[in-house]
């Protein structure tokens, strides 16, 4: 009995330490590039404020698109992961996910012009598929006797969602989010360039095309954000999600 309790404490400590390590690493990744950005922007002849505003506007668009894609992707995955609905819908979703997002951009731009909505719509279409398929995979592939224990308990409706579907889907949601956001950054910059939004990183890269130092600075800013978010948020979440289904 004592052994199990000390193992419990040890695991909690290990989890805490790894989270602390992530935070320290993230601090290094955030603070150093920030100092670097301020210094280099002077040399590149642009104001740090311009770069920061473009980074923030782009990040904000991606965050909004991610929230919509995660909610929609998760709901669709839960609605269509098995049964007759899955047999009908999954092949259609499989074709749709292969459809290039940029082919839809002209239509989206006609509908909403060079606006935030256009960029966000394009991003949602890009980010949703990895989330959807990762969640479907997570809820389909788990230990059979968990499902049977839940059936014997007669868990249905909201309790089934809360105590079973949500916990088994979280790992897929996190993995899908990491992949989706990776693809999202690429789509974000390209969409902002094509659509011609007045600000954002895409516009920054277009405007700085003749200034290699400013372009490099933009790329470094982008990398700093991606690394920080991964280290601070996604990696700890991924570790935690693996722990929750560990037996």
């Amino acid at each position, binding site marked *: 009995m004592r052994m*199990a309790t000390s193992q419990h404490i040890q*695991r909690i400590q290990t989890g805490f330490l790894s989270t602390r390590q992530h935070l320290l690493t993230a601090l290094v990744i955030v603070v150093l590039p920030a100092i670097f950005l301020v210094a280099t922007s002077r040399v590149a002849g642009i104001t740090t404020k311009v770069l920061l505003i473009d980074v923030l506007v782009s990040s904000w668009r991606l965050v909004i698109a991610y929230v919509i894609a995660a909610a929609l992707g998760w709901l669709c995955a839960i609605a269509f992961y098995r049964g007759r609905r899955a047999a009908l819908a999954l092949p259609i979703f499989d074709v749709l996910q292969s459809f290039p997002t940029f082919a839809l951009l002209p239509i989206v731009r006609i509908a909403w012009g060079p606006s935030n909505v256009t960029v966000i719509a394009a991003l949602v279409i890009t980010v949703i598929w990895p989330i959807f398929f990762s969640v479907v995979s997570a809820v389909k592939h788990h230990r059979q006797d968990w499902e049977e*224990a839940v*059936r014997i308990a*007669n*868990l249905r409706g909201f309790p089934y969602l809360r105590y079973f579907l949500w916990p088994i889907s979280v790992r897929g949601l996190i993995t899908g989010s990491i992949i989706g956001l990776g693809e999202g950054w690429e789509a974000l910059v390209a969409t902002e360039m094509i659509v011609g939004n007045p600000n954002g990183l895409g516009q920054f890269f277009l405007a700085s095309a003749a200034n290699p130092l400013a372009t490099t600075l933009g790329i470094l800013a982008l990398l700093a954000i991606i690394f920080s978010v991964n280290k601070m948020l996604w990696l700890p979440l991924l570790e935690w999600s693996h722990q929750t289904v560990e*037996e």
Partner: protein
Amino acid sequence: MRAALILQGVRKTFRTEDGQTIVALDGVDLTIPTGGFTILIGPSGCGKSTILRILSGLERTFDGTVTFDPDVRASHLGFVFQQFALLPWLTVRENIALGLIARSTPNAVRSNTVERELERFQLVQFADAYPRELSGGMRQRVGFARALAMDPKVLFLDEPFSELDSFTASQLRKELLAIWHERSLTIVMVTHIIEDAILLADQIAVVTPRPGHIERVFTNTLPRPRDRRSPSFFALEDQLEASLKP
């Protein structure tokens, strides 16, 4: 004798990946007496767990009929799994409460029932631990507690001691018998260990394979507590061994 469950003419087939049909069970007839301790015994792969799954409602595609006593409903069934089947993201307390949550049992009643089972299975100290932090024996205790928290009338057990060391298994066997008496349960258990069958059951159904069917049903009238060194124990053991021989 009142029957809790009756299996009649049960046939179960599986389809292999190359399109072949395998008959897992054929012509299975069995009556489970109310309040009795029935054990299905047989070699690995003979279909005894499939019979248990059909009885418990986990397996729904089969031919034949399963008749329940009118007093037994689906919510009166409990199941203890071979590999515990605890949900690893829930604590011991939450795992035990699972069936009560499903029934929307009021919080106070749920809490009292969970506490009762925690105490019954000496799990109070581990109420807030996760299954991964427990030994195999403790996990199976949680499995028992979860099944019994629902106050089942019929309890199904699929080789519940096979993942445990012999000392823990022996302890849990004694506790199972005590619970059976305390709560007037109907128990249906699967095992491949003849000694377990004789020690625990008062009805032993021998299942033989290809295709799985009930070869013979023994009524075990040995007095309790059973003495595994008694001549009548050995005699029944010999009879069961003879029935199980291919």
